[in-house]
């Protein structure tokens, strides 16, 4: 029971290592104690953000922690460089959750509907970067369709590229 409980406290090590591998150089290795420590750091971060978000939620006498509480908590705790990209992710999340699958398929099939759907989100994002383009067939197709539809389409990974540039 203690083992199961302990496992629930941490993120799965496989997921943690996979994300780290993406960032680390190709030849880099990670020691075992470093892996365990990173696992604990990640859990500690979640608890830290959650406690702060929940504090604001309770102060306003609400029972459900909302996305705005999380964004507010991150800015207050000093992780304001995360808040902006996460706002963009949230918009995409709401976009995907809001539209039914059938409408989304219809919009992707017809060019006219695609034009009608995309412009509002482009304006809200305010990004003009198009040079960052993953070399994936799926993304290439999507960009091709989007390019034929409207010239100002924003690549899906722009927020991530922004983070990388900030880091550099």
């Amino acid at each position, binding site marked *: 029971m203690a083992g199961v409980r302990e496992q629930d406290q941490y993120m799965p090590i496989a997921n943690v290592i996979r994300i780290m591998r993406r960032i680390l150089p190709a030849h880099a290795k990670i020691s075992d104690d*470093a892996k365990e420590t990173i696992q604990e*750091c990640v859990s500690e971060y979640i608890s830290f953000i959650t406690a702060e978000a*929940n504090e604001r939620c309770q102060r306003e006498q609400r*029972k459900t922690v909302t996305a705005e509480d999380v964004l507010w908590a991150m800015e207050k705790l000093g992780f304001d460089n995360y808040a902006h990209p996460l706002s963009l992710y949230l918009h995409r999340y709401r976009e995907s959750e809001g539209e039914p699958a059938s409408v989304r398929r219809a919009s992707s099939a017809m060019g006219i509907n695609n034009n009608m759907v995309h412009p509002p989100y482009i304006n809200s994002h305010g990004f003009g970067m198009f040079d960052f383009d993953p070399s994936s067939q799926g993304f290439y197709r999507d960009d091709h369709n989007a390019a034929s539809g409207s010239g100002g389409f924003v690549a899906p990974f722009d927020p991530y590229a922004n983070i990388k540039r900030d880091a550099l």
Partner: protein
Amino acid sequence: MVMADEEENGVSIQLEFPKGRVKKIMALDKDVKRVSSEALFLVSRSTELFLQFLAEKSAQVAIEKKRKTVNLEHIRVAVKRHQPTRDFLLDELPPPSQAAKPDKPTQPAGRPKLDPAPRGTRCIDQFFRKPEPENTAQAPGQPPENPAQAQSPENPDQDQAQSPVPVDES
């Protein structure tokens, strides 16, 4: 559902971390009652960004120290360099090369306490006087004379009980 949406629109909203696990970690705080799906999504994505940041900084430290393996010390240095991360995380990291200090339990030696002999009994006093003449007697040939001198005429019974143990007297 989420997978289908991602494939169709090409929008990457797939989470690397399982939502169930993130939710469990958030629920460890007993004060947290309910979390919306959007909040859960944001915390998961934010945790990914934090992990990427931590991995990147740790890798930089490892490169500065010309190491190919990222170890615990590199993570600690990376955490120290970022104020917000240091605030909540530095105390949680395991201390550097903790030396075990063996605590030797000092047991106080119990000294045996001698009970003071109550004075007043003549038998005890007389018994205490007897050994002195015996100790001073250097010649073993004169032992019968010493006890005779030590004894007083008031106690004729002791004259008869020269050989028995003082227990008989009491």
